């Protein structure tokens, strides 16, 4: 996965100062308001979330068995199953299928997994046209950008941005309203759908007992991508399998509510194998690619495992005080926001994304809203400590002075007299460094702590001694 997360500090600083972006990001609260209203309409919303989590736990605990059951059933229904260890292998499988079938044009449904493996770039290089057909993704692709939100890829763009883009790239000038722009996109993309040889989608779920891929959407582009082209390829992460139809019901009740505040998304497609004899539409060939790409690493780490429960609803982005200010692009990867700060280090390596676990206030809003209650702050803390400890192969870890100071502090903290002595001394010595009663510039390696905020001055009198005085009065 290609990431520019190394530039997080620079890009997030620029994002905060970008007025257009800031005004776009204000709409995020709308998602949360709608989400809350949608959950309120459920009698047993909280219980459903618990149930969804326990289904994920149960499924992941026997993931190998459920995946082979899914495979067996897809094959039984005339589909083909491929396994890809890495993004590179998955891209090679798609390219191979395209070549074998003389595919020139591809239409794509919105899929985070295909973004993750950068499939479009690979297809383009091979001279195959691959068009994103979700309106938001289409806009982002035309602009040669990356999606900035899991659910709303073009949320960073204003209507005027889109009008300008369509004027430039589609020769459709003077568009004013969202309706007009949507109509232009509909017409252009309808031509693409009709001419496409292959449709590529992700998969929200794979039902093991029926051999079915389940896809949620609002626009109808995924239905078109799976109905018109003669080949359908679905790319699914290993964690997307659910055991039964009954289990799926639980997720269908919470996913659209969590993502967009809808009781049900406009379309849910259950695709089981290829079209049957006598049917006039649907793909003649169906291929399911099951993707690992770092997921088994998450699985092997018991502290990280629950990040595989993620449904990609995007709710945690909308409530995150950091995402709300910096937007998705600053994260430098397709998975942004709180959940992205966990997934990106797993997929791209912590050494490339060390700033992400720190881009959080640990306020817990993400854990609170997550439909499957992933404890994101706990995992972020774990990643921080992993980074601070360092490992000889990749990570330098925290600076030596900082580590030494923390060790000293821990040592003193456990010895009360030493601790209060050190504090009294420090409170006395800080005098010359105070500005307006605050520490504005800490020395040495601690400078980073005061780069963007002031450090409160140590109190002249400690709480303990104030308490003692109070009691003896």
């Amino acid at each position, binding site marked *: 996965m290609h990431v520019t997360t190394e530039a997080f500090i620079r890009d997030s600083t620029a994002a905060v100062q970008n007025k257009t972006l800031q005004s776009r990001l204000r709409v995020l609260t709308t998602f949360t308001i709608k989400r809350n209203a949608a959950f309120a309409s459920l009698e047993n919303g909280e219980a459903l979330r618990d149930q969804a989590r326990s289904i994920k736990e149960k499924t992941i605990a026997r993931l190998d068995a459920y995946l082979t059951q899914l495979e067996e059933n897809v094959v039984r229904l005339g589909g083909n199953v491929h396994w890809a260890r890495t993004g590179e292998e998955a891209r090679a499988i798609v390219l191979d299928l395209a070549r074998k079938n003389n595919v020139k044009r591809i239409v794509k449904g919105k899929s985070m997994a295909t973004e993750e493996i950068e499939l479009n770039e690979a297809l383009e290089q091979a001279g195959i046209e691959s068009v994103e057909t979700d309106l938001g993704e289409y806009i982002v692709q035309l602009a040669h950008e990356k999606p900035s939100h899991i659910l709303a890829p073009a949320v960073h763009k204003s209507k005027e941005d889109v009008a300008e883009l369509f004027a430039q790239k589609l020769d459709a000038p003077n568009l004013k309203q969202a309706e007009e722009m949507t109509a232009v996109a509909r017409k252009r993309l309808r031509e693409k759908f009709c001419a496409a040889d292959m449709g590529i989608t992700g998969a929200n779920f794979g039902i093991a007992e*029926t051999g079915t891929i389940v896809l949620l959407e609002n626009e109808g582009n995924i239905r*078109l991508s799976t109905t018109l082209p003669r080949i359908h390829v679905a790319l699914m992460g290993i964690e997307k399998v659910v055991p039964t139809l009954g289990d799926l019901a639980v997720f269908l009740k919470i996913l659209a509510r969590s993502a967009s505040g809808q009781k049900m998304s*406009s379309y849910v497609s*259950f695709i089981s194998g290829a079209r049957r004899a006598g049917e006039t539409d649907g793909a003649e060939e169906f291929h399911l690619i099951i993707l690992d790409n770092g997921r088994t690493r998450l699985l*092997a780490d018991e502290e990280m495992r629950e990040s595989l429960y993620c449904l990609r609803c995007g709710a945690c982005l909308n409530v995150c005080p950091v995402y709300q200010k910096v937007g998705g692009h600053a994260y430098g990867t397709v998975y942004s926001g709180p959940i992205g700060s966990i997934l990106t280090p797993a997929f791209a390596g912590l050494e490339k994304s060390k700033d992400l676990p720190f881009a959080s206030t640990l306020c817990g809003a993400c854990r609170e809203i997550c439909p499957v209650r992933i404890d994101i702050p706990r995992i972020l803390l774990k990643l921080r400590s992993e980074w601070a400890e360092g490992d000889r192969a990749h990570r330098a870890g925290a600076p030596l002075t900082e580590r030494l100071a923390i060790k000293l502090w821990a040592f003193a903290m456990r010895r009360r007299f030493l601790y209060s002595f050190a504090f009294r001394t420090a409170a006395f010595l800080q005098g010359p460094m105070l500005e307006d009663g605050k520490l504005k510039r800490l020395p040495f390696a601690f400078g980073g702590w005061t780069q963007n905020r002031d450090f409160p001055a140590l109190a002249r009198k400690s709480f303990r001694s104030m308490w003692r005085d109070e009691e003896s009065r």
Partner: protein
Amino acid sequence: MAGTSAREEILGKISRALKSEANSGPPRPNGPRASSDEARLALEIRSRCEHKRQNLIEQFESELVKIGVRVYHAATTDSAAEYIEQIALKRVTKTVVAADAEVVEGIGLQKRLDRNGIRYVTDASDAEFRRTAIEAGIGVSGVDYALADTGTLVLLARTGQARSISLLPPVHVAIVKPDQIVSGLDDLFQLLRFEKGVNDLGSAVTFITGPSRTADIELTLVVGVHGPQELHVILLKN
């Protein structure tokens, strides 16, 4: 073959991560259910829904209206056909594609459209059905189930009920019989188990909840982005 080794390696990694035996056989979390149980459950659901039929219809309609679906109560089959004829005339439609289904044929739509010189096409009557569907102004289908609590139409793909009908034309009219309405997802999946069977759900089961919509430009809701802009539901009398 590289594919085989990738499969073995991924499954191996998973089983090592879980410290379990690979391929420990297909899981049966709830144990296999006897088909007589399935039948009994299906019967229970059908009779429970029958019992609260009127409530389900009202709930279904109120959910449909909330998501922008136009609902028409047809007192007679002929009034259903008339309703579709009116849409076709208003939109100056040249072609209507329809499901080759009893519920659609039964309302006598073809006769009414013929009278106005509007083509009425099913996939049985047209070898180039898909091309026709792309040009058609209206698609008319039945449904297999409907969910009251979300206003959802459930369509099973099969010969005669092409997926394109509810997807390609700018207007989709779905004809729903009252006894097709069930409470929600739990009822539906239980019924599918018995009436369709988990061994083969068919090439596609499609849930349709309202018209095609997007909010990708400044969160402005726009309907009819790739699928139908208008969705009409005709509720027949039992």
